[in-house]
């Protein structure tokens, strides 16, 4: 073999080695699904990739369905719905939102928050992660707090508390409910407590109107 031909073969072999693989490579973990359902789920994953949405939550949901013995159609429907929620959450919270924020935002939407609520939360929280705030919103609804009340509470606290305080707030409400308080009453009491703590901490007379029908925004008294 002459040197030119040898060089050409070397070049060709190198190109084969580094040739880019197709972007829509199959997700091996989905092998637990039947072939028709797997194809449908893969198509949804491709759509998520194209929209630059996180795909791991979708894979997780499919694996959950398979693990629980759900029918294929039900799994596909669940993933399709989650795909839509992830897209709504990302659009509402902004394109730079992390995967964890998007997942938590999708949970908040499922809990009854609106995309506008998530956008407002982003505005109030600034560059802080929305993961915990959105998750607390969903968790409050899950323990029985009406969704509009939970949204109002989370937005009211958005520029007042940090993530740890959000979690502590949610735990306090849960504890009160477990002790027999109604969800709305528990939420109101704990919000007042947070407001009082904030006012003392700031050394000011800031007040929050936490009543279910009250103002959601922070009020500064003269």
């Amino acid at each position, binding site marked *: 073999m002459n*040197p*030119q031909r*040898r*060089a*050409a073969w*070397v*070049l060709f*072999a*190198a*190109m084969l*080695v*580094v*040739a*880019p693989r197709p972007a829509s490579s199959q997700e091996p*973990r989905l092998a637990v699904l039947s072939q028709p359902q797997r194809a449908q789920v893969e198509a949804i994953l491709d759509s998520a*990739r194209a929209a*630059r*949405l996180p795909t791991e939550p979708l894979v*997780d*949901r499919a*694996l*959950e*369905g*398979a*693990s*629980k013995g*759900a029918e294929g159609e*039900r*799994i596909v*429907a*669940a993933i399709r*719905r*989650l795909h839509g929620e992830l897209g709504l959450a*990302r659009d509402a919270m902004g*394109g*730079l*939102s*992390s*995967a*964890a924020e*998007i*997942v*938590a935002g*999708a*949970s908040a939407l*499922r*809990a009854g928050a609106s995309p506008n609520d998530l956008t407002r939360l982003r505005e109030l929280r600034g560059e802080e*992660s929305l*993961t*915990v705030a959105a*998750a607390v919103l*969903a*968790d409050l*609804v*899950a*323990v029985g707090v009406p969704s509009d009340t939970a949204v109002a509470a989370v937005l009211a606290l958005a520029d007042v508390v940090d*993530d*740890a305080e959000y*979690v502590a707030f*949610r735990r306090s409400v849960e504890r009160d409910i477990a002790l027999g308080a109604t969800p709305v009453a528990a939420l109101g009491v704990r919000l007042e407590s947070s407001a009082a703590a904030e006012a003392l901490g700031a050394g000011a007379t800031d007040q929050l109107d936490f009543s279910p029908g009250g103002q959601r925004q922070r009020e500064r008294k003269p």
Partner: protein
Amino acid sequence: MDERDPLIDRAIETLRESVRLDPGLDRRVMEEVERAPAPRVGARRWWSAWEWLRRGRTVTVSPLGGLAAAAALAALLLMGRWGAAWVEDTAAPTEVLEAATVQFVLVAPGASMVTVVGDFNDWVATATPLRQASGDGMWTVTVPLPPGRYRYGFLVDGTEWVRDPSTPPALDDDFGRPNSVVTVRG
């Protein structure tokens, strides 16, 4: 050293002889040129370019040069891939995550086996078994988790799904079995 091959000497003499051309050659060539239609300048350029592209060439590439070219091509292709990944990350940036240790506990006195199954272990039923602390039915395991929101449940004796009573229930229960949810702060 001074002796040259007679063949070379003859070639030198032949090359030194003046060449006599046909006196009518110039005239005939010019007549042919004048008869040919003058091509448009643009077309001539394109034709020249096409001819240049079609003309065969011999390219000599050493094996080392071939490898260098292949490496450059590989670098270009890889840069393309990394570029795509970067664009994807811009849409959903990966945070610098710090793992937290989460303890899962279930009180199940009559159980012979308990596992925790969720988003963090691909819902593999046997991936994360709990151990019984002291034979009193209290099962526990600690799992390192990066910040995020995870849905999970306990699987008792491989058949019964049980929700974790110490964490909020998951609202998005798509498959009719109760889930719990845990959020790990970043």
